[in-house]
């Protein structure tokens, strides 16, 4: 870890990692295209898929961002018992394995779900979760927590002194919004929106399970089809290119909108800001309660269904769980080292290219990535021997963009507020890391580590061409489902959910206590 950071002195480490990422993601794409002897044309259905993908990603990202602002504001300015736990819990849907989340959403919003039962009892027409509305509902469910966390971090990055100053100047809520909150949102929202937009761009399983039919076909499914149905690697490569092109465009756009909020530094005494009383308090309470209901209810439903079955889980599931935990921890270490190095170097030289490279993993199709790696490594090593390191590395790389989103703003502030002081004290290398960077970035670092570990835990290892001999927990879940053992699968889902969340909680809490 230190070695990676030591290389940062002049941002060299970051540039190196960024270059490696670009080579990996674009190189695998090139390998697929080379295998296919070029890119091939898209069908009209593909164009429809591209259009639907962009449209639903825009709607999902905008809704997530829009709904996240009142929730984040309420959490930032209100204190109540269990608040810290709630903040952590609200992060849970984002790290849920997709298949588990869909189970939960269906048990709440499905035809047979609790909500529709209540609606039927009232004699109203049913709500259907299947169709574009289901895709968007699921995406908001997944990504609202991420948006809330990123925006909440923005709120917490405004030094408490600013709020106290505002108070002494008799600022009303409107003035606070104008001078403090809006500039902060202007800095934070585009990044949060972008992250969600990109996640929804490559979403695959959600659209398939809840999309209601081929109208809701995403680019990732078209890639899957090109691979599995048509063996048309050229089309897969073209679609992979399209995904990356959309990503780069969206990034440039959001960079253009975002304006850094320069609040300067405070003493970080952790004094709490006081929220306005009256109807605004009611509104804040409503935002918190509604968000908690929406996000926690599906998870509760999954838990209640699977919990009684846990004692009957076969032994293989437990050993798979242990293996998954170890892999997740290794992935998390790797991801945090990489994202810290990248974030510090982005903060140091504001290089747009490095930042774009850091976001690329979000839009790399796992299928293209896996196949490209397979083609590249085919001649030199046996895929069996590569399966494990490749899976761990890909998991770490896939989690990078999330770590970056949390770390970049913090690293920028750090540089701006303490950079000159640290330079004048000639504080470099390990001393700078130990005394300044780690303590100051503990929160986003913990958050990033927790996210990486949890995401790695829930990943199915979509690397279809690498033999999946590593029986991870998500794989066991699928195998149980594939052999009709639905009850065992739901117990396995609870275990997977608990472990993913447990890992996230450990790191996230650790970061906040550090």
């Amino acid at each position, binding site marked *: 870890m230190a070695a990676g950071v030591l290389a940062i002195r002049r941002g060299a480490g970051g540039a190196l990692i960024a270059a490696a990422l670009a080579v990996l993601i674009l190189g695998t794409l090139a390998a697929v295209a080379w*295998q296919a002897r070029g890119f091939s044309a898209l069908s009209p*259905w593909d164009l*429809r898929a591209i259009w639907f993908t962009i449209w639903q990603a825009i709607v999902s990202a905008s809704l997530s961002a829009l709904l996240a602002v009142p929730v984040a504001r309420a959490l930032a300015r209100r204190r109540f018992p269990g608040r810290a736990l709630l903040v952590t819990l609200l992060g849970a849907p984002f790290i849920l394995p997709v298949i588990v989340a869909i*189970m939960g959403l*269906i*048990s709440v919003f*499905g*035809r*047979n779900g609790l909500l529709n039962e209540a609606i039927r009892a009232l004699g109203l027409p049913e709500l259907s979760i*299947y169709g574009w509305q289901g895709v968007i509902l699921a995406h908001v469910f997944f990504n609202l927590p991420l948006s809330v966390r990123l925006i909440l971090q923005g709120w917490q990055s405004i030094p408490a002194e600013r709020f106290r100053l505002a108070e002494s100047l008799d600022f009303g809520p409107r003035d606070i919004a104008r001078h403090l909150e809006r500039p902060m949102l202007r800095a934070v929202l585009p990044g949060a929106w972008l992250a969600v937009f990109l996640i929804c761009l490559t979403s695959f*399983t959600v659209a*398939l*399970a809840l*999309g*209601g*039919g*081929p*109208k809701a076909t995403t680019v990732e*499914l078209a890639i*899957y*089809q090109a*691979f*599995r*149905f048509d*063996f048309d690697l050229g089309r897969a490569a073209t679609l992979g290119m399209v995904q990356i092109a959309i990503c780069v465009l969206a990034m440039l756009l959001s960079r253009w909108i975002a304006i850094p909020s320069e609040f300067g530094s405070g003493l970080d005494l952790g004094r709490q800001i006081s929220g306005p009383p009256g109807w605004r308090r009611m509104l804040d309470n409503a935002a918190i309660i509604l968000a908690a209901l929406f996000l926690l209810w599906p998870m509760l439903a999954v838990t209640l269904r699977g919990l009684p079955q846990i004692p009957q889980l*076969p032994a*293989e599931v437990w*050993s798979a769980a*242990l*293996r998954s935990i*170890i*892999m997740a921890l290794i992935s998390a270490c790797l991801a945090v080292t990489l994202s810290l190095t990248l974030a510090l170097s982005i903060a140091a030289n504001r290089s747009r290219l490095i930042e774009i490279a850091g976001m690329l993993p979000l839009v790399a199709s796992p299928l293209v990535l896996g*196949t490209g790696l*397979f*083609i590249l490594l*085919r001649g030199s090593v046996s895929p*069996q*021997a*590569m*399966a*494990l*390191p490749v899976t761990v590395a890909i998991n770490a790389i896939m989690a990078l963009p999330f770590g970056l989103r949390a770390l970049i703003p913090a690293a920028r502030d750090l540089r701006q507020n303490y950079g000159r002081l640290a330079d004048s004290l000639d504080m470099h290398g390990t001393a700078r890391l130990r005394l300044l960077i780690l303590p100051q970035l503990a929160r986003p670092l913990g958050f990033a580590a927790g996210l990486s570990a949890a995401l790695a835990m829930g990943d199915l290892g979509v690397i*279809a*061409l*690498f*033999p*999946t*001999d*590593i*029986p991870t927990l998500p*794989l066991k879940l*699928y*195998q*149980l*489902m*594939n*052999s*009709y*053992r*639905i009850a065992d699968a739901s117990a396995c889902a609870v275990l997977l959910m608990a472990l993913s969340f447990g890992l996230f909680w450990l790191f996230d809490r650790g970061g906040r206590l550090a």
Partner: protein
Amino acid sequence: MKFRLFALACLAATPALAQDKPVLTVYAGDSVTSEWGPGPRIEEGFEAFCNCDLQFVTGDLLPRILMEGSGTQADIVLGLNTDVTARARASGLFAPHGQDTSGLSLPISWDDEIFLPYNWGETAFVYDTTRLENPPDSFQALLDAPEDLKIVIQDPRSSVSGLAMLLWVKAAFGDDAPEAWARLAPKVLTVTKGWSEAYGMFTEGEADMVLSYTTSPAYHIAAEGDETKKAAIFPEGHYFMAELVAQVASTDQPELAQSFMDWVLTPDFQQVIPLANWSLPANLPQEDWPQVMRDLPRPEKTLFYSEDEAEAMRQPALDEWLRAFSQ
């Protein structure tokens, strides 16, 4: 699958080869090699007499083989589906199986010299008798059913059974297939990526019927003692699906691979199939099937397209399907 013997401490993926025994590498699908599939018993059964080490490699079968070409490590590929044989054959990577297929326990005759079926089933809609009082008794009745009867199907672009349904509708309705899809579309609750997601939705009570197999109820009866799941049998017929095994022409273990192929059709292998794969054995007389499989209602009529017909039909049928859902 040596992996399970591994202490977690040495997570390094270096298969501990039994150096003194020749290795037979079998590429197989995930459902085969899982603890709850037939894989472990196939491995055990073959190693009992072959004096070799059978190693499964799990993953995507055909894409992987096509990319590895003749440099592949695979000696045997187990679990290919009838819908990819044309592609697989064209690659020239597979060698003849050398078995007599005249007396197989299949509803169709099989004369393919390369791909050997080791189990089979038919597509069918499965329902729950406690939730659906009057299940449709024919495909036409399903099309005519009220729109509040909801079914879940799989996407033909990502799922084997989804593709089989595409061909099923084509075989049952011929040129009227687009109209059949148009009538079915409003009843389709959603289209999932794979079989397991759809089946899960059905067991959760989300949908009244799910696209699955005629043999699905056997699992519920045998493993859960639950008699309420049934497959609706349609007089229009049901589409035949088989899983196939083939040996790789470039194998470095030709004798071992051949002896595996010779073993597949023996009772020793075939008896593993019904209760581990929940499908029907390809070469076992009906009186030797487990009672639960013998009691299942059988379709009168089996529909099946030859490889070339299916290959020619795939894309047009998919376009029809997409159009029906894009209305």
